[in-house]
């Protein structure tokens, strides 16, 4: 050893020094780490393996706990690995399993080291190298080391053997051909008496069965034996995992395992095993009524337990049961509902899901009511969890559980007023969606939208902006249902709209446009109705000429309920007087004038449109109101034409658009769609696409603040947050009291316009739980009482698109290479059953025949490359053909099969290896459609 290297190793700081240094450093942790890394980089180049390995260990430490990159040490790690000393090897293996991955360049250099250690006589060295293999094996490593792993599978040291079994999982996954070599030994280990080895094997099979259960059906007898005999909870749990995958595939198997599982459930003291039994029964054996009853009884014990873990898992199990056995939930509903107010967030969410599982069209309104009240008093996270699940449950399958849409729309309005509500976007979507789909709900929708829009307090809450934009759109689109369009206009143009982000503001302006056109149109039509020449088509019949000249002050009282129906439309009959029109026009000009300079193009453009329209119509309206009212018809014709035009443009109904609509449009002649546009890219290459939809060149709020100083309300400090809304509100109301509805008119809105965070419904929260219990109880009574007088309105559905995306995807037969290989081994080698050599003798005569049948597939499987789906499917065909040949008569098949099944069940219940061999001697009479089962019975 050379001098410098000796010095290096003498004064090299150890890992312990590094840790101590890290804890006591004064220069900052990051700085210390970089300093140490520098040292390590030097040390790791040392020729002394001890120095190198210490450096590697320190580097592993820094990588593992301080997330430093250690990829540069890949080669030094290999060097340390070659050391004969165990301690060096250990460090190297640790470093390698931390840092190596499939694209590590030196990965393949490790093969020989691993092979050497796999062949070592020291079990700990073997263990280290197996551990490393289980972590880093890729195709090449798995292929090259398969023989070693195969040898270790029958190692007489159980310490090694169980690790070899465990590593097989990774080897199979990476190199499926190894199945042909190792699978039989793996299966043999199922008979191992050592619980640790057995546990490892069963663990491997449970992982394998997860991915492709069908391939492992033939091993069911072995698993069954383990299930019955095992005294080890770990093993039992894993076997249950396997059966929960296998049982759904084979009804006869399900019948057979139910009894032992129920026995386990009754007798076991271990909660983990008990829970696994419950889960297996409720997921995979849910057809068996008595087993499910037993399981639900055990779930109940879990639910009543003090331990929150058991309670949580109990609720989870209950949710699985609920899919098929809703009674299980209703039996436990008190616990479920009480859990809504549990301290544990997991339990709360789980019970919320269960409550939602109980929702049906009969109790949806009551349950939602109670849940909304829960939401009001719970913490923000859970509140939104509740709201989210109400929204998703109610909108499921195009609102299939909603009968009373008026109720639902007002619920949406109410939900958006909850203080913590952050579901604005979802509510917005639903408001618009319902508006488009359900015609009958539109009057109520407009009313709800109005209530939302008119409340200035809501504008300050950025989570609600989505809701507001939905409401603004709905009120503009369906303004003909509004009782008081003028008031809507006020709401849409109120000064606090400056708090809205520009895109939503643009929606507001557009909605205001629609409302204005509607107001003007109504006004003019009314004027015309008196003139004999006017057509009577669009006239609101209930409006008399005198109504329009009623005093402005008392319209709200007078006409609130006066809704006339014309041509199937509900039409607002609030008197729109000339005066009010003029007021509105002035207001539009004042409010939008400043927006002409908005930095946001959407806002600017729409403001300009609206103002342009006002410019066109205003002079004549003013004119006609100043002069004689009746004889100005001629002059008004021109503007009324414009108004009529606009009104017609807006009154075209918008409908939901099918996702495939584009595809239905036939291609116009002369339009070449397939032309290559590649050249365009060169031309457009330089042009940066805009990063967002709106072009904003500065703070929009700033700009709008300027704008507002001109507004008619003269409120300048509008940029303040919603907690100051009350004073603003008062000011607004004082000035524009006329446009507010009087309190008597609608119970929903109180006089004071409570801020968004105020809940009027808090009173009845305390007895919520009891309510909900009662409600769900009612809802589960099979006899249904029609609660809603009116029939469910039509919900517009678009043919194929809106249908619930059916899970059309068949669980594709996983013909991947691994399962293909496993099947080959299990079916191809059935002539050498893994059970015992005795059966070889007893069955030899029969097997000869079988061997004949299997010659083709067998040889072919040897020849053909793995992973070739084509060849494996061909193989299976061959197999089933072979099977068919074995059937004596296809007609008798079914009866015999049934008999056989019964017989086998009887026999098997007495258990044991021997029986399964007996079964094997029976001729095969099982239908060809399930090619796997016959082999399993062999």
């Amino acid at each position, binding site marked *: 050893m050379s001098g410098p290297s000796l010095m290096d*190793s003498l004064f090299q*700081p150890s890992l312990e020094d590094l840790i101590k240094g890290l804890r006591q450093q004064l220069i900052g942790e990051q700085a210390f780490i970089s300093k140490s890394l520098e040292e390590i980089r030097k040390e790791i180049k040392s020729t002394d393996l001890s120095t190198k390995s210490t450096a590697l260990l320190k580097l592993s430490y820094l990588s593992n706990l301080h997330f430093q990159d250690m990829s540069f040490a890949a080669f030094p790690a290999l060097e340390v690995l070659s050391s004969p000393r165990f301690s060096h090897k250990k460090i190297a293996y640790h470093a390698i399993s931390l840092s190596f991955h499939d694209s590590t360049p030196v990965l393949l250099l490790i093969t020989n080291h691993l092979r050497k250690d796999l062949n070592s006589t020291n079990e700990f060295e073997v263990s280290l190298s197996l551990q490393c293999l289980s972590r880093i094996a890729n195709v090449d490593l798995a292929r090259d080391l398969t023989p070693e792993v195969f040898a270790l599978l029958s190692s007489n040291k159980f310490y090694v053997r169980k690790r070899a079994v465990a590593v097989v999982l990774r080897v199979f996954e990476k190199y499926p051909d190894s199945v042909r070599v190792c699978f039989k030994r793996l299966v043999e280990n199922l008979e191992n008496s050592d619980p640790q080895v057995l546990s490892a094997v069963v663990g491997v099979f449970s992982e394998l069965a997860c991915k492709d259960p069908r391939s492992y059906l033939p091993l069911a007898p072995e698993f069954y034996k383990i299930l019955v005999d095992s005294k080890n909870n770990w093993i039992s749990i894993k076997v249950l995992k396997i059966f929960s995958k296998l049982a759904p595939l084979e009804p006869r198997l399900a019948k057979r395992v139910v009894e032992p599982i129920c026995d386990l459930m009754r007798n076991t003291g271990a909660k983990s095993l008990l829970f696994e039994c419950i889960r297996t029964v409720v997921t995979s054996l849910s057809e068996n009524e008595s087993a499910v009853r037993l399981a639900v009884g055990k779930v109940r014990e879990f639910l009543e337990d003090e331990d*929150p873990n058991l309670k949580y898992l109990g609720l989870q199990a209950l949710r699985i049961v609920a899919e098929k056995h809703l009674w299980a939930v209703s039996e436990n509903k008190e616990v479920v509902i009480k859990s809504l107010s549990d301290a544990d967030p997991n339990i709360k969410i789980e019970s919320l899901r269960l409550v939602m599982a109980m929702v049906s069209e009969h109790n949806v309104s009551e349950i939602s009511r109670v849940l909304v009240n829960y939401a009001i008093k719970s913490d923000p996270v859970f509140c939104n969890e509740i709201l989210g699940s109400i929204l998703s449950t109610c909108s499921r399958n195009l609102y299939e559980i909603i009968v009373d849409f008026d109720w639902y729309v007002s619920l949406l309005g109410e939900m958006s007023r909850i203080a913590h509500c952050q579901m604005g976007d979802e509510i917005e979507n639903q408001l618009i969606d319902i508006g488009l789909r359900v015609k009958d709900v539109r009057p109520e929708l407009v009313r709800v939208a109005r209530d939302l829009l008119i409340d200035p307090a809501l504008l300050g809450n950025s989570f609600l902006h989505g809701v507001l934009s939905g409401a603004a759109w709905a009120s503009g689109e369906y303004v003909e249902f509004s009782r008081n369009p003028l008031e809507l206009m006020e709401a849409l143009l109120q000064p606090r709209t400056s708090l809205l982000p520009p895109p939503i503001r643009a929606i507001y302006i557009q909605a205001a446009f629609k409302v204005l056109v509607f107001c003007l149109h109504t006004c003019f039509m009314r004027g015309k109705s008196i003139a004999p020449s006017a057509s009577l088509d669009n006239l609101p019949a209930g409006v008399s000429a005198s109504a329009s000249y009623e005093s402005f002050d008392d319209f709200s009282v007078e006409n609130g309920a006066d809704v006339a129906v014309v041509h199937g439309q509900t039409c607002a009959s609030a008197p729109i007087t000339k005066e009010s029109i003029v007021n509105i026009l002035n207001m539009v000009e004042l409010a939008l004038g400043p927006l002409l300079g908005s930095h946001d193009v959407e806002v600017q453009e729409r403001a300009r449109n609206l103002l342009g329209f006002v410019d066109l119509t205003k002079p004549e309206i003013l004119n006609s109101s100043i002069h004689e009212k009746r004889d100005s018809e001629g002059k008004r014709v021109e503007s009324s034409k414009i108004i009529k035009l606009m009104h017609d443009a807006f009154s075209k109904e918008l409908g939901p658009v099918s996702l495939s609509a584009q595809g239905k449009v036939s291609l116009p002649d002369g339009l070449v769609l397939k032309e290559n546009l590649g050249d365009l890219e060169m031309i457009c290459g330089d042009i940066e696409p805009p990063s967002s939809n709106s072009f904003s060149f500065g703070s929009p709020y700033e700009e709008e603040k300027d704008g507002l100083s001109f507004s008619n309300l003269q409120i300048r400090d509008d940029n303040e947050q919603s907690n100051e809304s009350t004073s603003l509100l008062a000011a607004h109301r004082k000035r524009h009291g006329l446009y507010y509805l009087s309190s008597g008119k609608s119970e929903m809105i109180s006089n004071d316009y409570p801020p968004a965070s105020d809940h009027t419904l808090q009173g009845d929260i305390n007895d919520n739980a009891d309510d909900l219990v009662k409600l769900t109880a009612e809802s589960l009574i099979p006899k249904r009482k029609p609660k809603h007088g009116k029939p469910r309105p039509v919900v517009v559905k678009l043919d194929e698109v809106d249908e619930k995306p059916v899970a059309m995807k068949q669980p594709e037969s996983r013909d991947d290479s691994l399962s293909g290989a496993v099947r080959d081994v299990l079916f191809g080698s059935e002539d050498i059953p893994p059970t015992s050599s005795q059966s070889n003798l007893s069955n030899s005569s029969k097997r000869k025949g079988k061997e004949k049948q299997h010659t083709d597939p067998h040889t072919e499987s040897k020849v053909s490359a793995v992973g070739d789906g084509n060849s494996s499917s061909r193989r299976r065909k061959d197999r089933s053909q072979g099977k068919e040949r074995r059937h004596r008569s296809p007609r008798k098949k079914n009866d015999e099969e049934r008999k056989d099944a019964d017989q086998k069940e009887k026999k098997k219940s007495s258990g044991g290896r021997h029986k399964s061999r007996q079964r094997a001697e029976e001729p095969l009479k099982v239908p060809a459609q399930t090619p796997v089962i016959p082999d399993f019975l062999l």
Partner: protein
Amino acid sequence: MIKAVMVMNTQGKTRLAKFYEYLPVEKQQELIRGVFAVLCSRAENVSNFIDAESIFGPDSRLVYKHFATLYFVFVFDSSENELAVLDLIQVFVETLDRCFKNVCELDVVFNYSKVHTILDEMIFGGQVVETSSSEIMKAVEEISKLEAASNAITLIPKSASGWRSR
């Protein structure tokens, strides 16, 4: 299959991290931070589960146990039983306790290699291979002896490396 084992203290400092599939260190750090963010917001005496799917993707579950200043976190998929994994955490902690005689956070800090050795005896490539803490102890002691022996034949006795592997 167990996907990951983490030990972190109540300040969020990682004390042990083991991922059974390769992950870049940045990703590891992100996941551990994600777990800690949820853990530290949880009250005492609530259930030992957290929703792991938001952090680790679909089909992942997470149980943790809180001992003194340390959180022990195991992440796994649907082929493990939640309560059994909780028991496994118990076994792990018991083994540490036996090994270090009243284990505390400092023991875990200063015995990086040994803690990893213990964990490796229990969990092999994501699969549980040993659940008895006395068996684990036996193996760990054997390994320590081997390490010591292989260091003892060093030609130049070194003060530093003698401490290293304890």
